[in-house]
Structure formats: structure tokens, C-alpha cells
């Protein structure tokens, strides 16, 4: 591959950046949240609800990032700590710690899983053309979980792939 | 709008006939065999009776014979729903006083078109 092409794939800061403010566009909306100091986003249509952290019931012999299960209106929902899963910062639990419950509806099956994050920050409107490919190096997050990158002002928000996140325990170890 | 008595032992056929009648604005009453049909006919009058032939308890031919004995049903059109288009079948129906027959497979448009020959 030509070096020129590689360069063009890397987002240039500020070039196509958009403001992280609430306005209705033809693009999609994304919920952004913090893991340590890094910003991440998921498709807002997948967000079932945002809950405050509560201690879940442990699942015996589960990997450490599977914190357990909780009862969400009669549904048993597993809780995954993304900070542990992706080795980002320290997994501490305090007042602002929240759980984002995501539902991914495939053709015949759907799954609902809660993800522990440090804080929920914003809702972003993003045109699909503004979602950049992620550079294929660096970071401790496996590429299948990353949908792309969004430039917001000076910051970069990592857009997560909800479908693959729902089966996070399947690609364990 | 005319009120129709639908007699058939098959739920799905009965549902379809009734659905078709309803969609055309007819009123209807259902019965699951000849005996039930006769009981309902004794209780109220109808402008039209549509009945299957092969049914448990009382078949369509017997139902027709019995209906013709009721004063209210002397001239009421009685249509037989049948898969048998043989003349023998038709003669038996006729002898019992049936007005006409509707040959299955059942086709909703055709049903509506043909019942207009006997009722409005």
C-alpha cells in the first residue's frame, strides 16, 4: 500500500470535525461515555436504559470483567465492566459509575447486556461520512469492537460496534 | 344489510367465510354443525344460510330439509358449500330444498359474487 493512501486514512485534526452539540441532522445519534479519560460512543438506538451502579449477583467462575447479573424488570442482564475488558484505567465504583444497558436485536435473537462505564457524557449527531476508519495499530482493544472514530473538536471519540460487544464473553480469553 | 348463518365444522373455512362476509358488510352467525345451525335458525331468522355438506351430528342436506320445515325458512336461500361438484350431490341438495351450491376451493370474490344471486 502506498504511504500516501495510509496518510489519507488517518484523520487530520480539525479538518472535518463537527461540534458536539444537539441539533437534528440526517445522521445518526450516538451516546458518548467515558472510560477513564477516553471518550467512547455507541449507537443511541441500542441503548435500553442507563442505570446507576449496583452490586450484581456473581456468576461462578466467570472472567473478571463479567461482574455478574442484575434484575432489570424481570430480565436477567449480565454486567460487563468495559474498563476491565479493555484494560483502560482502574475499575473503581462510586457515585458517578453508571451502567449502560444495550440491546442488540439481530434477526431472530436479541441480547441485552449492561456495560459499566465511568460516566455518560453526551449525545452526538454524526453523519456517516464523518465516521473515520480506525488506524489498525495500537490500543488494547481488539479491532472487532471498534466501528470507527469520530472527531469532536480536538477530541477523538471511539465508536464501538454494539453487535460484537453483545458477544463479548464469547471471544473471551 | 343481510344476515347470514354460516354452518361449517371446519374452523378455518368458517372463519374465512365469515371474514369474507364481514368485509363485505354482511352480518353473520356461526354454527359448527347442522344441529347447532338448526338451533340457531329456530331462534332467529336469517336472510341466507351457507352450509357445508359433510359435518358431524347433522349434515348439510339434513339441515336444509329441516330448515324448509320452519315457517321462517320456507323461502330463505340456502347455499351448500361443497367440494363435490357431481350432479348426484346437486340433486340431493336440490331435493332437500337447497337454493344453490358453492363449489370449493373457496374463493372470497366468487362467494360474494354468487351470494348476490340470492340476497342483497
Amino acid at each position, binding site marked *: 500500500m502506498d504511504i500516501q493512501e495510509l496518510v489519507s486514512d488517518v484523520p487530520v485534526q480539525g479538518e472535518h470535525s463537527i461540534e458536539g452539540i444537539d441539533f437534528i441532522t440526517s445522521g445518526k445519534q450516538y451516546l458518548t461515555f467515558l472510560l477513564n479519560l477516553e471518550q467512547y460512543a455507541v449507537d443511541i438506538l441500542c441503548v435500553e436504559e442507563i442505570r446507576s451502579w449496583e452490586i450484581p*449477583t456473581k456468576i461462578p467462575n466467570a472472567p473478571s470483567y463479567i461482574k455478574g447479573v442484575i434484575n432489570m424488570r*424481570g*430480565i436477567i442482564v449480565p454486567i460487563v465492566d468495559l474498563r476491565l475488558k479493555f484494560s483502560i484505567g482502574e475499575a473503581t465504583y462510586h457515585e458517578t459509575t453508571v451502567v449502560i444497558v444495550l440491546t442488540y436485536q439481530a434477526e431472530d435473537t436479541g441480547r441485552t447486556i449492561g456495560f459499566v462505564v465511568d460516566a455518560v457524557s453526551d449525545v452526538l449527531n454524526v453523519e456517516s461520512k464523518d465516521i473515520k476508519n480506525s488506524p489498525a495499530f495500537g490500543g488494547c482493544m481488539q479491532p472487532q469492537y471498534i466501528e470507527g472514530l469520530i472527531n469532536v473538536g480536538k477530541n477523538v471519540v471511539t465508536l464501538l460496534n454494539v453487535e460484537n460487544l453483545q458477544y463479548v464473553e464469547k471471544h473471551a480469553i | 344489510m343481510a344476515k347470514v348463518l354460516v354452518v361449517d365444522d371446519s374452523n378455518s373455512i368458517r372463519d374465512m367465510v365469515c371474514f369474507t362476509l364481514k368485509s363485505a358488510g354482511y352480518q353473520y352467525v356461526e354454527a359448527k354443525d347442522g344441529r347447532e345451525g338448526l338451533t340457531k335458525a329456530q331462534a332467529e331468522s336469517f336472510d341466507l344460510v351457507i352450509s357445508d355438506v*359433510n359435518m*358431524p351430528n347433522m349434515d348439510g342436506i339434513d339441515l336444509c330439509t329441516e330448515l324448509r320445515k320452519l315457517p321462517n325458512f320456507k323461502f330463505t336461500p*340456502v347455499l351448500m358449500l361443497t367440494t363435490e361438484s357431481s350432479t348426484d350431490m346437486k340433486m340431493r341438495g336440490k331435493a332437500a330444498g337447497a337454493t344453490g351450491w358453492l363449489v*370449493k376451493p373457496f374463493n372470497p370474490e366468487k362467494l360474494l359474487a354468487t351470494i*348476490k*344471486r340470492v340476497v342483497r
Partner: protein
Amino acid sequence: MSVDLSQFIPSFLEESFEGLELMESSLLSLQAGDNETIHSIFRAAHSIKGGAGTFGFDVVTEFTHLVETLLDEMRDGRREVSPKDVEILLASVDCMRLLIEAARDDENYDKDKVAQTTMLLNEALSSGGEKSAGEKISQQSDNTEQSTGKSDTSTFSIHFVPEHNLAKTGNDPLFLFNALADLGQLTTVANTGELPALTDIDVQELYLSWDLTLITGATKDEVHEIFEWVEDDCLLEIKKIDKEPLVNPSDGEKETVSVNEIRAASNIENESNSQEIYPANDNSVVKKQATKTKAKAKVEVSSIRVGVDKVDNLINLVGELVITQSMLSELGSDFNMDKIERLTSGLEQLLQNTKELQESVMRIRMLPISFAFNRFPRLVHDLAIKTGKEIELVIKGEQTELDKTVMEQIGDPLVHLVRNAVDHGIEPAEIRLANGKSAKGTISLDAYHQGGNIVIEISDDGGGINRQKVFAKAVEKGIIEPNATLADNQIFDLLFEPGFSTADQVTDISGRGVGMDVVKRNIQSLGGRIQVESTPGQGSCFKVNLPLTLAILDGQLVKVGTETYIIPLISIVESLQVDKDLINRVSGDMTLYRLRDENVPILPVYQLFGLATEHTEIDNALLVVVEADGQKVGLMVDHLLAQQQVVIKSLKDNYQQVIGISGATILGDGSVAMILDTPGIIQMALAYAQNKQRDMASYKQFAIGEQC
């Protein structure tokens, strides 16, 4: 106007499968001369044919027509009911099922089987009855009207002289003329010549005749069809004329009346006619819709039929609940301590209501076990023919109710057990006779409730299980040592070992690769167990014990560290406080507890599940002794809590199967608790014991490895 009938396809399918079941069971019990049974078989076939035609399942219609023809001959007494015919009809029922399933799923079917059965049917028809076998199905073409030439109008002259008693069949010329008018422009001329003197008129008779002229785009057949029902009761001439007709005034009094005037005169509601002109329509519309919904029907919608009484009962209970609710909310709006008694009684009532409601809702899922038993008469009938044995099947307790899910999953194991009874249980007739038994063997199926369980018994009056043979076989297979001494029930348990088969030769009836071990595993996965009783020379009995429902379980709540677990009561042998004198430590970290004369391994749950707890001392710990697969273990827990009924929730919906855990439930405080899976825990412990040199970490690896 088009009416979409595709929504009725699922109910047609359901009804058809019910019809097929009825046909099958009736055929199996059919006696010569039993006309009522033949009639009901005929009616079932007839309904299927009618429905299939409507939805455009032509293959089904065609095939069923042959079946119906054969049945018709039997019904009319033109044909004797021979065993051969019954076999053919049974095979036909199978084919109809194949065809309907293929139509439902829009898939291919076993063409050879259908072709073969069609041939048999045709042969039977041409040999036995009077009707010709190749009778064509003509309805399709009858109904398909040719709409060619529609744009050209032609003129018909119709001479219509009804018989005087036409009205007695419910026909009315007025409606016929209305129908004709819908086809085009109609002019009617009434002949009143036959009208008798007023005093002689019978008001119930018709005296008029008509000359009609119709200018229409319809064909002569379409015009003729309108008179279809009356053509035997009238003089009818329909002629196509090329020119505009001339109305010839002739003898007698004639009046020219337009049909609209007739309509008006007879006080009949006149509606806008625009939508009442129906194009000559063939089945294609319905057919297209049928294909469209086939794909939809493929996603299996599982439904249950519920008796109205059950629904009514539910409605009553909900009514009571509403009353309790309003009583409580009224109490709450203005509450003071004086009303505490009323509050307590209200809450009690609420508890009662909830409990009854829960029971009723559960009962909706309950179906009589006859749904599972229904297939056995046919199965035994076929197997008896195949093995050349004479077998009578006795079914009892078929009204015993069982949860639908359990029912669906117990079907195959039961089939296997019945096959087994036919193949291995019942001896050939000559051996039976030699042993002083009747030549005809008996297999009985029985179902009854016992406690919170259902017991299904499959018994035969055959030779019983040959203990020596089982023993020898087990030694040969290396399952046991040659010098082992086993009690009867231990010998019988060998039957359920993987790879065990005592049949001298593997027949295609029971030796299909699925062994009794699979039967046992299936039953266990439903939370049930299977026991065998057998008396040499008198027969064997397999007893299957199943929970009534998979949705609810009676459990013992226990506490380990911060976590609450539920142990199914059915697996608990006893709970006890450890007496430290009875503890034996063997080979490293394995601890045994002497329970009477048995040594029961102690499994600390906190270790198994990697939990932190203060209660790590075995010496005076609490043990819950559980049993599965004949193996007892003592689960060491911190505290025993209450016993209660819990609703089982699957972990698989949003997560995955977890070893040692059969599911989860939600407790009264809204928190989640895991339900222990006793057989799974024992397997975990066994695996742990086998790897006891390794540490817990590697064991965990095993557990997790299994999950993925």
C-alpha cells in the same frame, strides 16, 4: 375488492394437522362396518382438501382427492374395509402430512414416497370400487373463467320460464336479474300470460316468464352460470345475437320494464353498484398471497389452544386481584395505624390472589399427555408389523396434564422406550406360547401425578431383563469388573451406560445409535429421573419421573459469602450440621463425611465458585447433602435460609450456560439468585478430583473451557 385470506393459513395448517391425527387414530381403531368412524375420517380428509384448494396448495388438494375418493367408496359401502386399504390410507396420511409441511415451509417433499403412495391409491381405486381411479380434479379448471374477449360486448337473448314452485328453493328471479344487470345492460320483458285469475293465485308460486336482453362483455358461460342453480327448475334459452335486438311485441300482454324499476318497485336497498362488479376472478390472487405468507409461516409460531374454562378462571382471578388492589389503594390514601388489621388482611388476600393467579397461568401451559401418547398407537402398529409380533397397546391416564415444554422434550425419549419395549421386551409369539402366555403381548403406557411430579410408566409383559446377560455384556464392554457384585437396580442402571446394548443383533428398531444413555440424559436435563423394575418372565417397567413444569421449582435458599443460592429441593437428601468426628481427610485435599455407612465427599461451595467467606472451617460447617446420578455429595454452605418456590429464568438468553448453575431467579427483594445444578456440580467435583494435583486455577480453566 380483494379479500386477503392468507391470515387464515396458520389456522388451516393447525386444523389440518389435527385432522391428520384424527384420521390416523381413527384408522388404527377402525373396525369393519364402523360407519361413523369412516365418516369422521372422510370429513377430516374433506376439510383438508377444501382448505388446501382455497390456499392454492394444489399438490395437497390433488393427493387428498384420491384419498377422499377411496374413503367415499368405503363410506357408501361400495368397498369393504380391508387391512390392506387401512395400510394404504395410513401411508396416505403420512404423505398428506409431508405435503402440508412442504407447503407450509415452501420446501420440497419426498416425491418418491408420494408417488408410490399415489400409485397404491390408484391401484386400490381401480381394483375395489366403481369410481375410476384417474378421476380428474376439475374444480380448478371449472372455477377458472376465461376472461378473454372481455372487451368485446355481445348481446344475449334469454328466454326464462321458471317453474311455478321455483321460490320454494329460495331462488328469486329478481336477484338473478340483478346479477345479470351487474354484467351489463339488461332489458326485461315480463310475460304475464300464465297469470291465473286473482282468486286462483297461490302467493307462494311463480306465474311469470321473462324475455331478457343483455348487452354485456361477459361470455355465454358466465351468463349461463348465473342460472346454474335454477336450470333444472326452468325452461331456459340463451342465445347470442349479433345485432341490437328488437323487442317484438307479440301475443299476450307484455310490459317492458328496466331492471332498475324492478329494483325500485321491490323496495330493495339500492346501493352504489360501482364496487359490486367483480371481475371474473380465478384463484391466482389467493395463491400469490399464499406464497407470500409461506415464508412468514416458516418462522414457527408456537401456540397453544387453551380451554375457555381456563381463560374464564383467569379472568375471575384477575377480577379478584383488581378488587384487592382497589381496596388496598383506598386504604393507602388515608392510612393510620388503626387500619393496620385491614392492611394485613388485604395483603394476605393479595398473596392468595397472586398465588392462585400464578397457578392458573401455569395451568395454561399444561396440556394433557395424550398429545405425546397419540403417536404411539401408530408406532406400535407399524413396529408390530415389522417385527412380526402381536402387540396390544394399552394407554391409561392420557388426560394427565404436563407442561408444554416438558411434553415437547419428552417425546423422543418415550418413543425410544416404547421401541425398546417392542423390540427387546415382548418375546416372539412362539416363545410366549411356550411359556404359557398369550401370543399377544401387551405394552402399557400410563401417566399420573405424584406429588409435584408426573410419572410416566412404560411397561411390557415380556420376558423381563436378563440379569446375567446384562452383567456379561457390561463385563465384556469393560464397564464393570467380572467379580463385581451388583444389586438388581445397579444391574439395571448398566442399561443406561453409554454404548451399552443387549440386543443380540442390532435391529433397525431400537438400535439406531441413540442408546438408553441418551434417553437418561434427556430425562435428566428435564430435571427428571428414570427407574427400571423387572421380573424375569413377567416383564419390565420403565418409570419416568418428571417435574410438572420447567418454569417453577421448589428450592432451598442457602447463603455462601455475600451470595444467595438456590438448591432444588428434589435433589436434597438431607441437611446437617457437621460432626467433626465423622470427617475423614483422604488423599490430599479430598474430605469425606461418614453419613451412616456411606462416605460422602464434602464440596465447599465457596471454593467451587471462588467466593470469599468467613465460614471456611469444615469442623462444624453446614452440609446440604444432594444426590444426582446415584452419587451423593455434601455441599458446604454458610447458612440455610428459607425454602420457597422460585420462577426459573434462563441465563442463556443474554449470557450463556454456566457449569454448575441451571438458571437464575429473582427473589422477593428484587435481587438475582443463582440456582444450583446438582448433576453439574457433581461433574465439576469429579473433574476437580481427577485433576487434584493441579490447582484450582487450572480447574477453573476447565470449567470456562467447557463454557465456550
